[in-house]
């Protein structure tokens, strides 16, 4: 059923009790042309674009829990394309353009809100760095504006821009086209559209083993039986190393926990996304009125998908230093997700040493905004057995070739990116 004003009105007459399921829930078949492991936004988008862009519809997405229950449903939904290095700039800008048409394309409201993303500059060095980054963005055709302290203060009146501020505000870099979206809706919208294109979405089905014969994966062992596929795409974020290990591969990836938290809901007080690289902190206000904030990784390898006090304290300290007036807000929830931290902070979308295994991982803190382009490029790579020009640089073997894409210049320490 197409969602529209008309279908809304019609279903209102039956008290919204007769809406059909948004996607089927078929039992797994024994064989597919393509199996995507991981039902997060990336896996679901990949399946959708395999069907829509490449006509490949004999596809299953296998998810161990419920779709969107991984990082897709745990993230703070910041969307931007303010990158300095060329491969990242073009890739994330393509993603942002897909976001701009996504609700219409999927016939599903993903609540994409271009409320702008402001990076705060706290020193002259920060300002220099942001003007360099902003100029690089503009040369790549991406919108960027350098803000003075007065402009920042005008946009974000609650921010402490005084001369006695703990973290002085010297200005900022603004990307107006950036913003936020509703994370669950992204998973559900892609799932519904992929399902309509013929894709089987299989939840509660954990991959427990990959059987390898020479350079091929011959079968996938799952908690719902053995499944075989001509091609297999891995899009399991923080579990990439664990599952690639089942096929005998080691990845340039470490798994680390990232946390976020929300306050009790309040009236609208913050209508843009504010981030600080120096303090390592970001905040926005959700449509429900909660302040959504986050900051550092736990900084040690972890598959424990849960929250932990020190980074929460850090985020709250940063919030109060920047926005003293929030001091009496109570925090409502904290949670954690397990991140696929790559060795250069940039993603991997491409082929592996195995002939029929493809890899999509290394999303670090920032893979939600990548969801549409990641699905677009990963589907292209799987369908054509070669990368799209937008992900040609994101190869698995780039590290050993001296072609790392290290936006921060942090070096091969995954927890610093």
């Amino acid at each position, binding site marked *: 059923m197409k969602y529209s004003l008309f279908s809304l009105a019609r279903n209102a007459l039956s008290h919204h009790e007769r809406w059909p399921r948004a996607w089927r829930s078929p039992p797994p078949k024994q064989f597919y042309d393509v199996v995507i492991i991981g039902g997060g936004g990336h896996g679901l988008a990949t399946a959708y674009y395999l069907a829509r862009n490449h006509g490949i519809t004999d596809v299953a997405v296998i998810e161990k829990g419920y779709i969107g229950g991984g990082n897709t449903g745990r993230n703070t939904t910041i969307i931007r394309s303010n990158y300095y290095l060329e491969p990242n700039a073009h890739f994330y800008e393509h993603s942002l353009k897909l976001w701009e048409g996504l609700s219409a394309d999927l016939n599903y409201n993903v609540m994409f809100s271009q409320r702008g993303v402001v990076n705060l500059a706290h020193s002259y060095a920060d300002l220099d760095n942001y003007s360099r980054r902003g100029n690089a963005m503009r040369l790549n055709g991406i919108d960027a504006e350098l803000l003075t302290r007065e402009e920042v203060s005008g946009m974000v009146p609650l921010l402490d821009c005084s001369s006695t501020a703990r973290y002085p505000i010297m200005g900022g870099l603004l990307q107006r086209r950036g913003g936020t979206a509703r994370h669950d809706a992204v998973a559900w919208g892609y799932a519904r559209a992929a399902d309509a294109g013929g894709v089987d979405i299989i939840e509660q089905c954990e991959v427990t083993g990959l059987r390898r014969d020479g350079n091929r994966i011959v079968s996938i062992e799952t908690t719902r039986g053995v499944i075989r596929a001509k091609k297999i795409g891995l899009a399991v974020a923080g*579990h990439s*190393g*664990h599952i690639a*290990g089942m096929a005998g591969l*080691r*990845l*340039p*990836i*470490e*798994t680390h926990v990232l946390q976020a938290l929300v306050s009790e809901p309040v009236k609208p007080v913050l209508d843009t996304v504010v981030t600080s690289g120096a303090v390592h902190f970001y905040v926005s206000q959700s449509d429900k009125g909660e302040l959504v904030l986050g900051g550092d990784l736990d*900084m*040690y*390898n*972890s*598959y*424990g998908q849960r929250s*932990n*006090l*020190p980074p929460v304290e850090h985020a709250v300290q940063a919030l109060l230093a920047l926005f003293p007036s929030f001091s009496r807000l109570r925090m409502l929830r904290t949670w954690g997700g397990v991140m696929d931290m790559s*060795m250069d902070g940039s993603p991997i979308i491409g082929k592996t040493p195995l002939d029929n295994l493809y890899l999509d991982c290394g999303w670090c803190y920032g893979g939600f905004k990548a969801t549409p382009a990641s699905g677009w490029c990963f589907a292209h790579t799987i369908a054509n057995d070669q990368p799209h020009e937008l992900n040609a640089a994101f190869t698995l073997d780039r*590290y*050993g070739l001296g072609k790392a894409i290290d936006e921060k210049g942090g070096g*091969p*320490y*995954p*927890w610093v990116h």
Partner: protein
Amino acid sequence: MLSIPCPYCGPRDVTEFSYGGDGNVRPPTGPDAASEAAWSAYVYLRANPRGVHEELWQHSAGCRRWIRVTRNTLTHEMHGSAPARASAAAS
């Protein structure tokens, strides 16, 4: 919050430590003869287990020594620690 058993100071809060990563990556033996693949594996590839992990930490806000901790990355259970040079299994 993790409590890290420092072999010199006893159990201390994780906030006193800096992380040094996987304790079992070693540069190739015979560095001049080693292949580029062996070098690149040393610099970039990690076992990244969901389970027992032997890792390096520095007690940077304490005795400042490097130590080797064996920890479960899923449950965060501690299985022991030792001076960085030793093997944690020996403790």
